[in-house]
């Protein structure tokens, strides 16, 4: 059997002496769409950042196609993986289009300016996310949701195999949440791989094949979504009684009691 595309082994990390992740092993196969869920402070973002090589773990390793990230350059990693962070305020007024064009950074030379093809691809990605009309807007006047979609358009143009998405729907209204997550489906359909931190369990059922559940820095469950998520597990992890239901054939979770 071939190497898994993303292999995390014995990952342990802490900040200022406070342990955040403890001995996490996680395997993501090529073509997987995996959701990473867990309560606040469980270590989801830290795990995602470590997976993207954005922090050097205290112990353990992350490998992509069998290669240890610690031995790869930032540029090589960026060509294989796109990391979508939670939208942060911008200091300088790059336009939305300029932000999207930065998705080509790892694939173009130091002195190359955006080509016509790159511009067209950037516009196409923005059209897909319904933000083409914002192309010339400076970043500082974009709303959180608009900026999030701009960053997603950047992920689209970067054309990396693996997407690491940190709460990609946190600033979005319901319609745009669906539009955003359809991109995940599209990427997986094209043979890509997605690992995403998500809070909405209904969306996990609808758009993801697999799920990994983190609690207090430890991985407590991983597997296909429908088999893995059950009342006992989720009630234990989130420390609130959750009830599973079905509406129009879609799984939903609500707070019981």
């Amino acid at each position, binding site marked *: 059997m071939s190497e898994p595309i993303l292999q995390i082994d014995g990952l342990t990390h802490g900040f200022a002496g406070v342990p955040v992740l403890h001995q996490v092993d996680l395997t993501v196969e090529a073509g997987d769409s995996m959701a990473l869920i867990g309560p606040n402070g469980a270590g989801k973002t830290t795990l995602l950042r470590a997976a993207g090589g954005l922090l050097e773990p205290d112990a353990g390793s992350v490998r992509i196609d069998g290669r240890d990230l610690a031995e790869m350059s930032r540029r090589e990693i960026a060509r294989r993986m796109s990391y979508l962070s939670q939208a942060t305020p911008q200091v300088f007024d790059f336009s939305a289009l300029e932000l999207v064009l930065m998705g080509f*950074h790892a694939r173009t030379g130091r002195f190359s300016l955006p080509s016509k093809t790159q511009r067209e691809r950037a516009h196409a990605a923005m059209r897909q996310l319904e933000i083409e009309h914002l192309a010339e807007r400076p970043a*500082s006047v974009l709303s959180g949701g608009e900026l999030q979609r701009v960053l997603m358009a950047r992920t689209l143009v970067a054309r990396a195999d693996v997407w690491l998405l940190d709460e990609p729907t946190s600033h979005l209204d319901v319609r745009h949440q669906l539009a955003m997550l359809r991109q995940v489906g599209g990427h997986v359909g094209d043979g890509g791989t997605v690992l995403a931190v998500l809070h909405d369990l209904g969306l996990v059922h609808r758009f993801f094949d697999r799920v990994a559940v983190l609690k207090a820095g430890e991985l407590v469950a991983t597997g296909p979504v429908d088999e893995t998520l059950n009342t006992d597990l989720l009630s234990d992890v989130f420390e609130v009684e959750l009830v599973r239901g079905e509406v129009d054939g879609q799984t939903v979770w609500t707070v019981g009691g």
Partner: protein
Amino acid sequence: MTTRRDRALTSRGLWQAVLAVSLLYVAVSVMALTYGSSDFGGWQVVSGLVSGELTPSQHAIVWHARMPRILFAGIVGAALAVGGAVFQAVLRNPLADPYILGISGGAALGGTLLLALEAAVFGGAMTYLGQLSPPIAAFIGAMGTLSIIFGVARWTPAGRTGNYVLLLTGVIVNAFASAVILFLKSVVSARKAQEMLFYLMGTLTVEGLSFQLIASVGGVVLACLAAIIWYARDLNVLSLGDDEAAALGVDVERTRWWTVAIASLAVACAVAFTGLIGFVGLVVPHGLRLVVGPDHRVLIPCCALGGAAFLTGADLLTRASFAVFSTTLPVGVVTAFVGAPLFVVFLWRNLRQDAEGVR
């Protein structure tokens, strides 16, 4: 909404912007070359230079008085403006100026310390001190504070070496250096204190300004500029945030280290001779961002030329003001007089553009 041509950088846009700012710089330089308190000015200078028919005294005025000063103002202005643009991007702080990391504090401390020591009698020690000049002492001071700052940044536990460590250490070093300078000013003679004050205000009246010195400082500043242009695209991404920059393929720590070190070197070289000239590194990048946009591939070369033009123009004003005040003002006073109101205008325009949603 109407479709407008997108503003993302094209090579045509890049060259147009650079050409426009170059023309501005050339225009200001020609004005500075042709203006003077002697009755030799205007077209006389231009025609004299073109035809080569200059009297010995005219030759001396142009080649030994005005030209070195104009060239030096250009070099210093370029270093300060590029330094400002780099620090603003790396520290992600629009208020960062070339001095924010303590370069001013260190340079000023080095220079004033030497001036103070010269005043004190140190017997045999003076033989060694005599070898030093304030510029060299200032340069040593600036580089010394930089090594302290980078030392502290490296020393802090992993995961906390963010830009704010650099920023906070710089602020503290500056504050400490100011206190020492104040102490020195209090204990030296009034005449020496006056000399220090002039040095601290920033002046382009540099003793022994030879073409050799200009070539050396200019060479270092140009090399630094070329290196910063090499990193220009990385600066764009770095200004978004550490995680974003790393995710897009930039080695954050390395890029931050090199860009800050290179920009600091250029600034230290410049301020070592002139003392502290404020506002150039703040006003020029902010003004140019409004015109050419925030992309550092166009912003950095434009800042170099725009900074050169700004300081050359400010120096022209100090020379012109001689007629009014019968004394040459420190150029730092003029850059502040012109820079502070300009900065407010830029800020207001920036806010207005934000409100209108276009750049």
